[in-house]
């Protein structure tokens, strides 16, 4: 089962057909929880960390009693760093969790809709990720997992401060809701800075997904709530949802305007990028992301009209360095080999999907 998780680039959040999924790639909910009476992971000793892992292992059966649940327990210490980094590229664990693996574990549903990081910054980090704009379903699943765990274990909670977390920014609900968006038109029309400014003033943050806000990262952004205390979970989610809806509207309007005002330039750009992806023999990760963004925009606007399209989310993950390394089955790819392999895979994928 773990092989599947590591070898298959496809994860549930990449599915298409969800709300606004031409622009919203995925919605993610994270709940931070800690067990009562054990110091938080940064300050816990090996025995205490091991205790957390074993307590969470006890919850495996309870989790599997939930609907559509098929959880497995992964001892992160026992899998190599490369495989842990692949999990990062699929958004199943965080980079921190991958790098520090001692007495760290992961419980993950085989359909990858939900996972629980054990001993990351907090003892328990419940994560649920759904395709498109679907914070409600993601929260509902994370909430059920939280109840299931709490049913057996005492969770650190304080009447006034709510759920107690290692970092005071997560205190209260322990909730971080985030949405991944593809916003090429807002970047091309130079409106992204305004959006970032406006959004940060109302308690949300915007980050680029691969590195901070540059254009070369495939025009993918992540918007999430910054505040976790003093609001109900529902209020936090509603607030984010409303803002994201507006950003989506702006992006759609931006796309329409771009197409109207600069048809020739845009069509040329899309097909040039397609040409590179279709025929290049060597391509860097950044270039691939940025070309994929153009082609994806081209498909969304009907410039490239031969659907079904290849799954861009999947291509995005396949072309990440660690995933390529894993896929190659070779000891260590150098950057030249990696670029070549990346180009080969993209060529085949795009051909195979018959655009």
């Amino acid at each position, binding site marked *: 089962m773990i092989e599947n998780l590591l070898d298959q680039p496809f994860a549930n959040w990449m599915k298409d057909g969800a709300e606004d999924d031409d622009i919203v790639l995925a919605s993610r909910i994270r709940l931070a929880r800690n067990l009562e009476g054990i110091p938080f992971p*940064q300050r816990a000793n090996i025995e205490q960390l091991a205790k957390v892992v074993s307590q969470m292992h006890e919850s495996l059966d309870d989790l599997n009693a939930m609907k559509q649940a098929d959880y497995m327990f992964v001892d992160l210490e026992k899998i190599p760093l490369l495989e842990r980094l692949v999990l990062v590229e699929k958004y199943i664990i965080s*980079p921190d969790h991958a790098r520090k693996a001692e007495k760290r574990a992961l419980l993950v549903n085989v359909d990858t809709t939900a996972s629980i990081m054990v001993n990351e910054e907090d003892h328990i980090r419940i994560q649920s990720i759904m395709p498109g704009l679907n914070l409600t379903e993601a929260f509902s699943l994370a909430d059920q997992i939280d109840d299931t765990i*709490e049913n057996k274990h005492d969770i650190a909670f*304080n009447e006034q*401060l709510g759920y107690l977390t290692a970092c005071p920014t997560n*205190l*209260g609900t322990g909730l971080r809701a985030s949405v991944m968006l593809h916003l090429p038109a807002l970047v091309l029309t130079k409106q992204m800075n305004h959006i970032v400014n406006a959004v940060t003033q109302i308690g949300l943050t915007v980050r680029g997904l691969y590195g901070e806000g540059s254009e070369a990262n495939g025009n993918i952004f992540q918007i999430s709530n910054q505040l976790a*205390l*003093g*609001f109900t979970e529902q209020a936090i989610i509603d607030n984010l949802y409303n803002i994201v809806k507006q950003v989506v509207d702006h992006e759609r309007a931006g796309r329409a305007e771009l197409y109207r005002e600069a048809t020739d330039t845009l069509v040329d750009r899309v097909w040039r990028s397609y040409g590179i992806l279709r025929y290049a023999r060597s391509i860097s990760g950044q270039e691939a992301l940025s070309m994929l963004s153009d082609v994806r925009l081209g498909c969304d606007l009907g410039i490239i009209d031969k659907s079904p399209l290849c799954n861009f989310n999947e291509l995005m993950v396949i072309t990440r360095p660690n995933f390529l390394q894993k896929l190659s089955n070779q000891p260590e790819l150098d950057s030249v080999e990696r670029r070549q392999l990346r180009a080969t895979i993209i060529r085949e994928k795009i051909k195979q999907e018959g655009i």
Partner: protein
Amino acid sequence: MLCSDCKKRPACVHITQIKNNKKTEKHLCEECAKNIGAINVSFDNQFQVQDFLKGMFNQEFFADAQTTNEVICQDCGMTYGDFNHKGKVGCSNCYIAFSEQLSPVLTRIHGANRHTGKFPKRSGGALKVKQEIKKMRQELEQYVINEEYEEAALIRDKIRSLEKNIGMDNKEA
């Protein structure tokens, strides 16, 4: 163009410095640039929220910084000074130990210092009831002061039954 330091590898980092109105330009390769700390490509050094927090929890709020830094959490041994440095607390008890120092800062970060969201279902249920009982006790006192004994008796019975529900009655007896 070759790196102006090692003169071996091609230059890929171009630095223009203006100091005292004098402009100097350097063209370095990745290696040499890393050595002088001009670029930071390391994965581990990403800027984190905690770095901001460190600034926020600084002692300027508090009259006596020394004593504040020495406040210690008896459970995990973390001092407020440690916390200030790391931006993360050591255990759940730290929030109680540092409550006096943290409260104003929490309001600054979140704009609130009271949780209004979800309660843990099993352990939190009792907490919620306890909170309710506390409120009713205050009402009870008020009724007694006002000599509204009928109302007082009603609320007393309500409190008893709630206490019984969450198993607090044994203690009280």
